[in-house]
């Protein structure tokens, strides 16, 4: 059995890559995929920690995160589509009306 630290490290790397993408990309769709990537990294930590601590509740938490992520994707993509209809762009740089 591998040490759970390795799973945690992998999850950390995946989270960092997702955060990098969120910071560096301008396409709203790709930024959204990066958020999914980060959610997956967190799910991996929960599963590993649950196994390391002999606790099944980690898997239950992942189950709920999956549901919330699915709901978030549905609403988020609908928002992106309606913004695209209004502005014909999916680049977040062009959407600066709310800038103070």
């Amino acid at each position: 059995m591998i040490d759970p630290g390795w799973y945690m490290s992998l999850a950390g790397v995946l989270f960092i890559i997702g955060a990098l993408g969120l910071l560096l990309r301008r396409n709203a769709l790709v930024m959204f995929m990066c958020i999914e990537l980060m959610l997956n990294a967190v799910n991996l930590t929960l599963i590993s920690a649950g196994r390391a601590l002999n606790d099944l509740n980690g898997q239950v938490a992942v189950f709920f995160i999956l549901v919330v992520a699915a709901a978030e994707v549905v609403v988020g993509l609908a928002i992106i589509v309606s913004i695209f209809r209004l502005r014909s762009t999916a680049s977040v740089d062009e959407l600066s009306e709310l800038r103070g």
Partner: protein
Amino acid sequence: MVEALVFVVMAAAAIAGAATVVVARNPVYSAMGLLGTLFSVAVLYVLQLAHLVAAVQIIVYAGAVLTLFLFVIMLIGVDKSEQRDEKLPHQRTIVAGLAIAIVLFAGGVTLFGDFDWVPAATVMNPAATNGTVQAVAVPLFTDWILAFEATALLLTIAAAGAIALAHYRRRQV
């Protein structure tokens, strides 16, 4: 031994997929990279005996969410080229440096530091977290029943909200 081998292969696949998501210019390639990562992470779930969660991951993420992403990519179109210049000075250098520093620090603390899984160090019992449907259903429908019902409400609200947002109103001429 087998677990270590599968872990190394799947970790490499997951990182490669994640890198594709960030680097690819075409959003369709990004979606395919995300698919690779999701599958690899699902295999890692199975490796840690989280069978139900792995199945849900494949069905919900790879099945439903990714299809939705591809639909929206088709709807929006992929030919728009993305601006690649830096709005803030040294944006990429700073972010990359920060990322490497965080990975090195966290990995070092986790793997080589004086860090212990408190109960696991003595007794790590894989049978206790064997995530079959039956095993996960027991806490889900006893301790977490309220949260479970709340997710039903959440999904209904999300579906209604998505329909309201994406509903196309033809202009009255």
